[in-house]
């Protein structure tokens, strides 16, 4: 049984310097730990000329105690994708990981479609200035759709274990039928791939690694993993496929699974040790986009609360059991 102590919403969009450039959201916080600070990347939004949202990557630096905000980025961290590219309509989320003396970051690129709202792919960007800016490794994705994973490859989370790269990500299973009153909604599951170099990936093609808890239209998103006491622990979020935006009974909540070998996972939500906040709190109706990190032997979880992280993100710390 995991046991988390919530530390509250630690970053609020409206109280940040982001308000001068962006309209809302700090989604899917994901961190790189430096010697004397923590850099937390997230996706924040602008609107384009047609009033569509575009997600941009920014970051905030905090002290190692996770108590003080040191600075918030005000420059372009990753440039926009080119016309027609998989990431031309934004990046959300970003998964950074240190690789030798560089920082690799796996982008989830969004591009709009005609019959359905969106298609996605996972790209690679690389920083050689300690995460201040990133350059694309090519204009196309490193992971995209394939025979048994036909669309919506997104939410890549990458770590190196035993000298091999592992990526946990989500792939689309289906778009629900369109009716006169309902647009198609997506159903997606967590899958995995591995790699020697972080560039060329071998999928476990079409393999859903986390079993469903709420039926086959369960949507699973944003896996994050930490290795602790000989076990790989995964948190993710999941929801129903429809009526999930405003109905808290069907929206995102956190799930948990564990594994001894990175491949076979046991789902065990009863042990997740973290629940919705009380009515009126920032995470009372929704919890999503978790990210696990370890700082000075303490395990933290960054996550978003109500409204998919529109207002900010929060923090919890693991109480050892």
């Amino acid at each position, binding site marked *: 049984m995991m046991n988390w102590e919530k530390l509250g919403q630690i970053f609020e969009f409206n109280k940040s310097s982001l308000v001068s450039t962006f309209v809302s959201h700090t989604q899917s916080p994901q961190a790189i730990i430096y010697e004397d600070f923590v850099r937390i990347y997230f996706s924040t939004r602008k609107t384009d000329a047609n009033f569509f949202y575009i997600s941009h990557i920014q970051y905030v630096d905090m002290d190692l105690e996770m108590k003080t905000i040191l600075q918030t980025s005000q420059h372009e961290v990753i440039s926009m994708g080119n016309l027609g590219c998989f990431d031309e309509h934004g990046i959300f989320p970003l998964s950074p990981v240190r690789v030798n003396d560089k920082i690799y970051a796996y982008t989830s690129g969004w591009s*709009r479609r005609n019959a359905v709202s969106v298609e996605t*792919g996972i790209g690679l960007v690389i920083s050689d200035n300690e995460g201040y800016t990133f350059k694309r490794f090519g204009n*196309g994705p490193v992971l995209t759709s394939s025979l*048994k994973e036909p669309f919506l490859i997104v939410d890549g989370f990458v770590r190196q274990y035993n000298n091999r790269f592992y990526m946990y990500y989500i792939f*689309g299973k289906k778009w629900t039928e369109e009716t006169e009153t309902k647009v198609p909604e997506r159903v997606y599951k967590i899958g995995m791939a591995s790699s020697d170099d972080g560039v060329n990936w071998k999928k476990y093609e079409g393999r859903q690694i986390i079993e469903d808890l709420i039926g086959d239209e369960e949507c699973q998103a944003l896996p994050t993993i930490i290795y602790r006491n000989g076990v790989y622990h995964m948190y993710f979020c999941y929801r129903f496929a429809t009526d999930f935006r405003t109905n808290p009974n069907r929206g995102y909540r956190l799930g948990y699974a564990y594994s001894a070998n990175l491949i076979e996972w046991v789902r065990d939500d009863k042990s997740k040790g973290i629940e919705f906040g009380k009515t009126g709190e920032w995470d009372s109706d929704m919890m999503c986009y978790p990210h696990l990190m370890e700082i000075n032997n303490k395990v933290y979880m960054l996550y978003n609360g109500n409204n998919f992280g529109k207002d900010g993100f929060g923090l919890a710390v693991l109480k050892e059991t």
Partner: protein
Amino acid sequence: MFKWEKLGRIFNPLDYQGKYWMSEFAQAPSTLLFDDFVRVYFSCRSQRDKDGQFVSYSAFVDLDRKNLFNIINVSNEPILKLGKKGCFDEFGTYPISVIKENNEYIAFYAGWTRCVSVPFNTAIGMARSCDNGVTFQKLGDGPVLSYSPDEPFLISGPKIRKFEDIYYLFYISGKEWLSINGKSEMVLKIRLATSQDGLNWNKINSNLITESFDLNESQASPDVFYSNGIYHMFFDYWIPTNFRKTKLRKIGYAYSFDLVNWTRDDNKAGIDISNDNAFDNEMIAYPHIFELDGKTYMLYLGNEVGKYGFGIAVLEGELK
């Protein structure tokens, strides 16, 4: 220079009314030889919907082996279904390339989806036939060859070949979308992937054919034919920055001894647009070479990239 004698148009889709899936166009012809006939796969367009949009289907026409101008059969239905909601091939399967393997027929096709900022995107899917190439079933809902860091979009135009037990998939990939007079125009380059099993592909990740003079040159239809110890490639090319005005698309030629390194030599191609008022007096495009009973033929598209069907030419002598 090769010497091609044009024999005329061999198939015009406008001659065949009453098929919901074939209103006009017969694009990207490719052949499969049977005992008594030559099956020519091609792709055509449905009638436009109320928004002016169409979908592309693939089908075939069977030509009498003894007299290729004698059409003995046209497929009753498209050979491949369109993809499911949100899939890469929801709005079209064009073009298609079929190879016979023992008693099985394997097809590679480009699937079309519609986008918002640019009109469409494509990736390559795979299907199998168990009824002698009349209908094909997809191996999955997704593509077998899709986007990658150096090939960001528009993976299309597959031509499947097998040489010495290795599969070679010649195809095109998008380099850039240009915005020309408010229209999106593609810059396409000829590429290659190889495979042992037809399912898992290794991309070569380089352009096979150098541009003739304009780096924005688009290339398509990399049709490779082995003859006299040389790999011969016929393809077509156009300049996307002025194509809407010139309507010009021409056939180029390159040769190779190893399938990877190619020498372009358009002067050798030996086939050009017609001067008279024929169906190919503005452009010729999408060449396909096949050998039949000792003769070498080329199928190709005429004006408006095959809107009025395809023609055939015969080579004097051999490709060497």
